[in-house]
């Protein structure tokens, strides 16, 4: 009495299941890491990931660990990104303002052409250290998913605040100023 099932629908179902599984895998893989945001929401500060990248001007490598003991405003940007242009003058002002209080801005140019990035730096007269994340390894470590993003790192190397999007004066006063006072 058992009816022989045609193999064609079975094959179609198998292909569909495989496609759905592949889609689900792709979606899961592309989710940015949000552990930092969750820790901050619980009032905790996670240790910043180790980050060693070449300097944009080609003068060797730099590590986040080199700045331990200072307040670091780590800004991920790219030359073609409009909001990055809008926030750059503010970041430069804060870099100057923090210089004698044990703080600095460090820029990370992501997945960008060096020539274009250099023109951007010249256009806005940016004087803070610039690193180049040419293949996106740094942005993966920090779970960066958009342009720009900024991480405020305290003197112990922990992430004290994050802004997913352009920073403004209010964010800098609230997230950076209190860390500078505890020198």
């Amino acid at each position: 009495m058992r009816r022989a099932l045609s193999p064609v629908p079975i094959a179609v179902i198998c292909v569909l299941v495989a496609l759905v599984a592949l889609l689900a895998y792709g979606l899961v893989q592309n989710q940015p890491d949000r552990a930092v945001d969750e820790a901050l929401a619980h009032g905790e500060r996670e240790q910043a990931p180790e980050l060693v990248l070449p300097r944009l001007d080609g003068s060797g490598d730099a590590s986040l660990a080199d700045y331990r003991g200072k307040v670091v405003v780590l800004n991920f940007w790219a030359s073609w990104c409009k909001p990055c242009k809008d926030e750059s003058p503010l970041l430069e002002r804060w870099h100057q303002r923090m210089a004698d209080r044990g703080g600095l801005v460090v820029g990370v140019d992501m997945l960008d052409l060096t020539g274009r990035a250099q023109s951007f730096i010249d256009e806005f007269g940016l004087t803070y250290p610039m690193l180049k994340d040419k293949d996106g390894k740094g942005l993966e470590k920090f779970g960066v998913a958009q342009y720009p993003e900024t991480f405020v790192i305290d003197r112990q190397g922990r992430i004290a605040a994050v802004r997913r999007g352009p920073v403004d004066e209010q964010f800098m006063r609230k997230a950076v100023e209190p860390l500078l006072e505890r020198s």
Partner: protein
Amino acid sequence: MRRAALAAFAALMLALPAAASARDCPQTSLGDIEDEVMCPVCGTSLELASEAPQAQDQRAYIQELVDKCKSKDEVKQALVAEFGDNVLALPGDQGGNDLGDVLVYAIPALGILLAAGGIAFAVVRWRRHARAGGRPGTGPAMAGGEGARLDDDMERYDL
């Protein structure tokens, strides 16, 4: 007469390398390259990332290199220097791991062959089974008046 011929020959010899170099340049084109490299921010090949600002910058950069008479390989090397190996869209381009490059092509081909073989095997078995047991999808004939009763029932529910 002889002097004129010599002068013409000399002029021709001087002109030949210039003509050859003009013919060799450009060595490649943007269209030839953009389907073989990635737009790293967009996560697609550069060809598909039409409007993204980063893709526009990347295209302009490639065009600059093409205008400087760089070859396709030289353009790709320049892109790797800017974005790393992941900018290369073709697995064979990424170098270093020859076995890996072969496997990237061989494994999907093997998978397709196995799947096709499996489907063909299943179809042959299903046909053989159907031939042995009468028309596929029909069970054994119903006994007595069961068939007629079933037809009556079906008619009653016919909307």
